[in-house]
């Protein structure tokens, strides 16, 4: 029996059962199916992973030919190597946990079965994405997770804003996808295959030209930017927070948005020969890490803080990829999945406790009321801030070290990442203090009902918090495991050892600074915060409005297209074509027919006149041609 095929198929079965008859099943059965099948997929993944670790040879499975003609052949095939293994473990592992959490979180929702159907559908597509053996399989999953994301963001479809957010996410992703598709076409033109091994093998041996390689790289990056919410295609992610919070944890933090990093790692064979594209990836990542962090500082909605933080952290992963340290990127992807899922789920527990309140200004003093949530949230925040020995410290430090030491790294790119790390620590401290400390700003009616999360949610929080603590210790073994696929350019010189420790100290120091500054500004009266905000008014407005990206896209791009559609094409060209092709000929024929019928007067004298005129014409013609 094909075990690999079962990994994506199990969630698909869950989708079909819950989607088709779920509304008629009891809720406990719906949740057992929805959580059990991903858990089984997780077990199978562990099995395949163990096999891979012992044998070291990737597992491949060809199921059937998708299309085949003289000029193209694409198979439906699965491939389980070290990179897919890591992704697959994260997706099924964190995915299963979030399914379990959801059973508690969504227990009051009337569309319980539909929710789980979508969630399982997401897992199916995500697993297709990570297990696909060629670009088409990956793309099928890639677009499929986009669909699942669209459906889940707009899950509460009675609210127009939520469905708008879903639409926006899908369309912005599609913009990136055109880059992806064009890259695939261009790759095929040279390699004559869409298979990852074939592509990487081909480019390892021969490269068309730097221009081509860089073009492919940048097109792929554009695709990755869409899915992974990187500048300039990041605008959909904050809006995507309209979906249920576990969805934000699973799709918009832990798994789907990191697909771009997976794509870059998968296509490392292309990037290693495209130096310019690598620089663009690295600097784009650094820019997003920085800009995302600044936007995180200005938000009041707890989920949006986390959303910008996700964007910023994925920026780090892109930066790592751009520096050639694909393994460091994957490592951060893995630790980020743990602590960011924990943060989102913690935020979910807070929102759940406050009956839907997401604004941090209406929270405060919660740590006494929900201590378990507070504890797990704190752990995950420390991990995100890069405080040792939490998981995020190891992975972020690895990336920053590469920023300094990699062949195309530089102190400048390191400094950007370093400052962004400080800002990360700052905005997380700010979020924690506004939520858990200080005076309570919760309305009294809600205050009475605050309760700790139910067992299904709390247990998941504890597991993820524990993993956020210990998950980073496997660092060297992790990169060692990936090394057969993602070869790493070795940092030059053994003397680097000393520098590495200095930089590590610097990252810890800036994290500490961020935390202390956060405590200083936000503990107690926040008069200083307001003063600073007023002092840098224009900058504050720029940042808190997301640098007006949204305004630009909406007011310029969308409005322009709509204007062309309505005012130019519909009003002008369509009318013109109608006139030229329909009104004019039919009017002309009408006129001619009226002319001729008006000649038929019934008056004999008139007819005699026509005869004479005719004769005269004939005579004239005869004379003229004589």
């Amino acid at each position, binding site marked *: 029996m094909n075990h690999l095929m079962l990994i994506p198929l199990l969630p698909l079965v869950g989708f079909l059962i819950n989607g088709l008859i779920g509304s008629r099943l009891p809720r406990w059965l719906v949740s057992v199916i929805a959580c059990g099948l991903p858990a089984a997929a997780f077990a199978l993944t562990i099995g395949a992973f163990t096999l891979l670790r012992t044998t070291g040879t990737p597992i491949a499975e060809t199921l*059937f*030919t*998708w*299309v*085949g*003609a*003289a*000029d*193209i052949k694409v198979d*439906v095939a699965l491939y389980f190597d070290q990179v897919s293994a890591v992704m697959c473990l994260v997706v099924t592992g964190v995915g299963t946990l979030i399914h379990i959490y959801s059973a508690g979180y969504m227990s009051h929702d009337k569309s319980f079965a539909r929710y789980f159907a979508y969630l399982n559908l997401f897992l199916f597509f995500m697993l297709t994405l990570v297990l696909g053996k060629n670009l*088409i399989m990956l*793309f*099928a*999953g890639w*677009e*499929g997770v986009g*669909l699942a994301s*669209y459906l889940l963001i*707009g899950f509460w*479809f*009675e609210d*127009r804003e939520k*469905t*708008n957010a879903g*639409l926006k996410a*899908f*369309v912005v992703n*599609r*913009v990136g*996808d*055109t880059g992806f*598709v*064009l890259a695939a*076409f*261009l790759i*095929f*033109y040279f390699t004559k295959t869409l298979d990852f091994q074939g592509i990487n093998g081909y480019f390892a041996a021969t490269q068309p030209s730097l221009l081509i390689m860089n073009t492919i790289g940048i097109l792929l990056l554009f695709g990755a930017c869409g899915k992974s919410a990187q500048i300039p295609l990041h605008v959909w992610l904050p809006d995507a927070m309209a979906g249920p919070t576990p969805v934000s944890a699973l799709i918009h933090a832990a798994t789907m948005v990191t697909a771009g990093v997976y794509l870059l790692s998968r296509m490392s064979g292309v990037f290693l020969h495209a130096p310019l594209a690598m620089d663009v990836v690295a600097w784009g990542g650094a820019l997003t890490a920085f800009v995302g962090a600044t936007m995180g500082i200005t938000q009041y909605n707890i989920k949006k803080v986390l959303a910008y933080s996700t964007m910023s952290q994925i920026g780090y992963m892109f930066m790592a990829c751009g520096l050639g340290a694909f393994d460091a990127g994957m490592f951060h992807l893995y630790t980020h999945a743990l602590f960011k899922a924990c943060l989102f789920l913690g935020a979910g527990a807070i929102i759940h406790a406050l009956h839907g309140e997401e604004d941090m200004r209406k929270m405060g003093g919660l740590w006494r009321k929900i201590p378990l949530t507070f504890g797990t949230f704190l752990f995950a925040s420390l991990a995100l801030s890069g405080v040792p020995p939490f998981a995020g410290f190891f992975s972020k430090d690895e990336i920053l070290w590469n920023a300094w030491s990699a062949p195309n790294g530089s102190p400048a790119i390191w400094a950007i990442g370093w400052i962004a790390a400080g800002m990360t620590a700052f905005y997380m401290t700010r979020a924690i203090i506004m939520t858990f400390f200080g005076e309570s700003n919760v309305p009294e009616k809600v205050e009475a009902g605050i309760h700790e999360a139910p067992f299904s949610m709390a247990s998941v929080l504890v597991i993820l918090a524990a993993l956020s603590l210990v998950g980073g210790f496997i660092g060297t073994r992790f990169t060692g495991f990936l090394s057969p696929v993602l070869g790493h350019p070795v940092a030059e010189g053994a003397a680097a050892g000393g520098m590495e420790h200095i930089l590590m100290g610097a990252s810890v120091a800036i994290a500490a600074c961020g935390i202390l500054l956060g405590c200083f500004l936000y503990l107690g009266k926040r008069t200083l915060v307001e003063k600073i905000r007023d002092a840098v008014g224009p900058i504050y407005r720029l940042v808190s409005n997301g640098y007006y990206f949204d305004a630009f896209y909406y007011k310029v791009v969308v409005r322009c*297209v*709509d204007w*062309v*559609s*309505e005012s130019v*094409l*519909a009003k002008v060209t*369509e009318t013109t*074509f*109608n006139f030229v*092709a*329909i009104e004019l*000929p*039919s009017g002309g024929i009408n006129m001619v027919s009226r002319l001729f019928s008006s000649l038929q007067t019934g008056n004999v004298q008139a007819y005699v006149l026509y005869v004479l005129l005719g004769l005269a014409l004939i005579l004239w013609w005869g004379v003229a041609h004589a």
Partner: protein
Amino acid sequence: MLNPTTVLALFVLPLAFALILPVMTERGSVLPRIVTMVGMLGVLALSVTIFVGYDGSTDPQLLAVNVPWIASLGVNFHLGVDGMNIYLMLLTSLLFPVVLACTWKTAHADKKLYLGLLLIMETSLLGTFLSQNLMLFFVFWEAVLIPMFILILTFGGENRRKAAMTFFMYTMVGSILLLAAVILLGVESLHQTGSWNFEFSTLYHLHLSTTVQMFVFVAVVLACLIKCPVFPFHSWLPLAYYEAPAAGTALMAGAMSKMGAFGLLKLAIPLCPQVSVAFAPTIILLAVISILYGAVLALRQQDFKKLIAYSSLSHMGYIVLGIFCLQQSSIHGSLFQILSHGVAVAGLFLMLDLLEQRLGASYKQLNALSIYAPRLAVTLMLFILASVALPLTSGFTSEFLILFGGFQHGLQLFNTGNGLLVLVCVILACSGMVLGAGYMLRFARAILYGKANEEIGMKDMNLRETIAFVPLLAIVVIIGIWPYPVMIKAQNAVEQLTALAAGTQQVQALPQTTTTLPIGGADGH
């Protein structure tokens, strides 16, 4: 079951049932409807048998009926199934029973005229697609117009007179030139073989001078582009799709528009390969303008029917693009798109009609369908996703193959110094992916989502309607997930077509044999 009788039965069955109808006198009984449905299902059964049995290398004689009709003029009654028309045969024979099932309870279906028109339309459409004789093809090509004209005129909306006349006259203009081309080809065959002959197999082997090819190509392509339609010959489309009764719109968009694409594959390229290659970039440009023009217009259409009508213009552009890229992959993509778009667009129009049957004209303000009627909503969503070309639906398979083949072709042309036009066109066509998602999801948002304010007492899909839509969705999913077994049925036909074009390109590459006509400009701009 693969024998000539099956093919003949396929064609004769609807006609025979159409002739039975007038004999039945009962008014308001369901009997005529049942009889019509039996006839259509019979055709469907035969066509599925042929489709399943056909494997691409089946002997063409086995699936051909060939009897002399006007022997002295070389006009034979010659029908045959081949790789090029097999999808169209299936599509046509599937759409008719589905359309009838969906309009089963309407006032139209009470009228024997309506049923008879549908059956005659089915016969003539099948005749068009299965013809292996050019004159026969032309006869059916024209014959399709008549039942459709009467259908719009009798059962259409408020503005039906104008719509029917516009539709009829506009497409007629294309047909007149086509007739001239048909006669010219007959004359050529008289000169070259010594006798009149309109068999495709003979005509394909004539040596046509570039001038003759030019004339035939322009005539055929004009007729086809009007039929599809492709920008700028689409003016009849919004009005006709809007005013026609649901059955008419679904069949016009689903099956009739495909006649244009089929004509390009069956006539334009094999008869005039050199000119086709030379003019391909121009046609590709028109196709891509269609894709974008239709898509941008669809973005702001408030009326659902017009929105789908313009989306259809956009999707037909993909078909024409794929055909004129002349790659195996792109032509396979076009053939799939013929099937995929036929099914999806008919499904969308029929869904709208189901809503109109339930709510009357107020369906235009409908929202929150997901709450009122979940099954309708899910079905509609699936057709929307197929139109958005989401992977695992037929739309993706076809659009991917078209754009893939187009891109390879365009880059190849560019690399061999033949201009950038095709490559740029294909890249622009890719942006249709974004626009398509935009207008289709705006449509979904408007109709499916929102707050259910009052109880409007809408019934969800019943069993009859569900059964009608299942085969359409099956095609969407099968072509999306495992298109290969279907693809091999058309492989031989596609190979022959591309070999013809490739042969031409090689000939053109030699400087001595390049044509002297000023057609080089076509690929220059």
